[in-house]
């Protein structure tokens, strides 16, 4: 087995129970299309909840979900909170500044304290790659951990809501060509999207960006690499723009925001390179005039706001699946 396959296999072990069912959701890497489709189908079903008079289902009634955010994120935390509430769970939001918990002991102490309060699910965001994995290794067996973003590594619920949105528009993944544009190096979203799209059988996943923003050996993730925007967008069905963090403008990754926009910004003219029915996606929040033209972000091909709506259904699906499997496991174990 190659080094990378081994790495994927080891991660797979911890998020699945003995029967191969999801009990944590840490990473898309290593999950197969059957499991991913189960999440998507469940999300499809739960999407209807928002249209009901009473926007609630009792799947997580009596459960306590803790949003454990070591890194600030209003948007992701809000959608997780809404998802948990629509599943009838009690929700506790904890924003823990990373500066206060740079040491591992305090992270473990935080966990142990919350565990002692008999919480059932941790939704974790952390600046270090592997943090959700680390937490999943150290929680009690009945607790389920959902990764809401760890370092540069993974943001699996974001990737699932993206493929959910793609499936709603395009149906079958097999003929699709998807371009992911921008800062792949620092992007947990891109890594998870690449794994999800490949697992679901996408014909081609492309990454587009300057060499400074692409990780070494990125081809090993199963992508075609483009350094120029026009070639990268040619004939593709889906364009996913990544957010460019302001701090990337410092140092020597990029010369300026202007040059980045000139070379890699998604304008209406550039979008014309893609198929006429191509959809435009962005994990948000968008930097208009940095990575995307305002007219494109708000234009007819954009599905950016729909992604936000879908995010709630997908997170409901993931939470209910994991919690159900964890509870079943705990009962069988007892």
């Amino acid at each position: 087995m190659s080094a990378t396959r081994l790495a994927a296999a080891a991660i797979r072990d911890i998020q699945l129970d003995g029967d191969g069912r999801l009990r944590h959701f840490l990473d898309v890497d290593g999950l197969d299309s059957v499991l991913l489709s189960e999440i998507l189908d469940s999300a499809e079903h739960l999407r209807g909840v928002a249209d009901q008079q009473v926007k609630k289902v009792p799947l997580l009634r009596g459960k306590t979900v803790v949003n454990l955010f070591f890194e600030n994120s209003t948007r992701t935390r809000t959608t997780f909170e809404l998802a948990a509430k629509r599943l009838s769970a009690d929700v506790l939001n904890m924003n823990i500044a990373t500066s206060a918990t740079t040491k591992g002991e305090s992270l473990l102490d935080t966990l142990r304290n919350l565990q002692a309060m008999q919480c059932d699910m941790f939704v974790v965001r952390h600046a270090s790659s592997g943090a959700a994995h680390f937490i999943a290794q150290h929680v009690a067996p009945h607790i389920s951990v959902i990764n809401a973003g760890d370092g540069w590594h993974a943001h699996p619920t974001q990737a699932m809501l993206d493929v959910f949105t793609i499936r709603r528009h395009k149906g079958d993944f097999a003929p699709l060509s998807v371009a992911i544009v921008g800062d792949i190096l620092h992007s947990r979203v891109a890594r998870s999207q690449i794994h999800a799209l490949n697992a679901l059988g996408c014909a081609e996943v492309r990454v587009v960006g300057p060499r400074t923003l692409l990780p070494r050996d990125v081809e090993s993730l199963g992508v075609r690499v483009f350094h120029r925007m026009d070639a990268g967008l040619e004939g593709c069905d889906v364009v996913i723009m990544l957010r460019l963090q302001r701090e990337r403008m410092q140092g020597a990754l990029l010369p300026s925001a202007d040059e980045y926009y000139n070379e890699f910004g998604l304008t209406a003219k550039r979008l014309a390179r893609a198929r006429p029915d191509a959809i435009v996606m962005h994990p948000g929040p968008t930097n208009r005039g940095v990575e995307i033209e305002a007219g494109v972000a708000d234009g007819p091909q954009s599905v950016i706001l729909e992604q936000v709506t879908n995010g709630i259904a997908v997170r409901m699906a993931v939470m209910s699946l994991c919690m159900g499997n964890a509870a079943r496991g705990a009962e069988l174990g007892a």
Partner: protein
Amino acid sequence: MSRLTIRGGRLLDPASGRDEIADLHIADGQIAAIGAPPAGFDADEHIEADGLWVAPGLVDLWARLGEPGHEQRGTIASESRAAALGGITTLACAPDTDPVIDETATVELIHHRAAQAGYARVHPIGALTRGLEGRQLAEIATLRAAGCVAMSNADTPIRDTRVLRRAMEYAASFAIPLLVNPKDAFLAEGGCAHEGPVATRLGLPGIPVAAEAVAMAQRLELVAQSGARVHFSRLSSARGVDLLRQAQRDGLPVSGDVAIHNLHFTEADLAGYDALCHVLPPLRSAADRDALREAVADGVLLAICSNHAPLESDAKLAPFPQTEPGISAFDAMLPLLLQLGEEMGWSPLQTLRPATRAPAQLLGLDAGTLAVGGAADVLLIEPRAEWIFSRAAMHSRGRNSPCEGRSLRGRLHRVLLGGRSL
């Protein structure tokens, strides 16, 4: 003192090339004779060594003991004992202590504590620059006179190439070995794993091979100009080995070593974010590991060191990038060395040389050999014993070893330190 005869073992001495079944006689802590006993020699004790290897104690070029400054990780007493019980009877300890080894008082403290403990013979490596800060030279001649066996700036690269040049030239004036871990500070900054497919998949900030190669190329140019003797400490990449091999062909006075775990583990072992494999220099690709093994085989790398770094358990209890790098290596050093020799098809002498005579010679120490008249630091090894490594059974205070559950072949039967059974 007592007189002792080790009977019928397979004597292995890489220094002399001796590989034969013979008796070894020890008197007053020294090797008195090999083969026939000296006239009038009457042993108080006999050790039957049928089927055992009788080898010199290992010599380690690079180890951290924790003390002074990090006693929660290990002390000179705890780690020099762990070393000796692991078959390492002589070791050089790194200068990145707190305070760093840049004053004679610290050298004396280490000598004193090691003598008190009475286990492995500990030789401090002096800091090349004060506080390892890379600005002002440390008192190299004074430190040498106090007993430092080599100088090094440890894992802190000297960024200023003019300071680096002067440090190399000054150390060369006093004929003291210079141990250099080649690492470009800028290219390595923030990294915690080999920059390659595994780090890319796991989203870990990488340390590119170029961090090692660029620093080596720069230092080799300074060697070519100054003639200073430089030993590259703990190489990690095939590219680094290539540069060293070429420099040796060009006739430059350079040598190198590699840490034992970099000869067995690779980036693949980081799977699942195993923080026990978080170490500097990082575990690189299988191709790098194989090139390092070949370089030991053909002598481009003359030594294998432990790169021992005991850590308290909390140091590894965090998400991978936030954990402390380091492996507690003393306990697995000898079995991993024997396994390496077996996997490479080396003779026992070939296997032992890079961890005994070669490093001792580099440091100018009278160790790592079974010479008559020398200290009786002798290992009795069961070469074919099979056992499972267990962290719970480690002697080092630091239990941070990635070898848990690994099945190993070859284990220590007994260690004699100055003729005394441990």
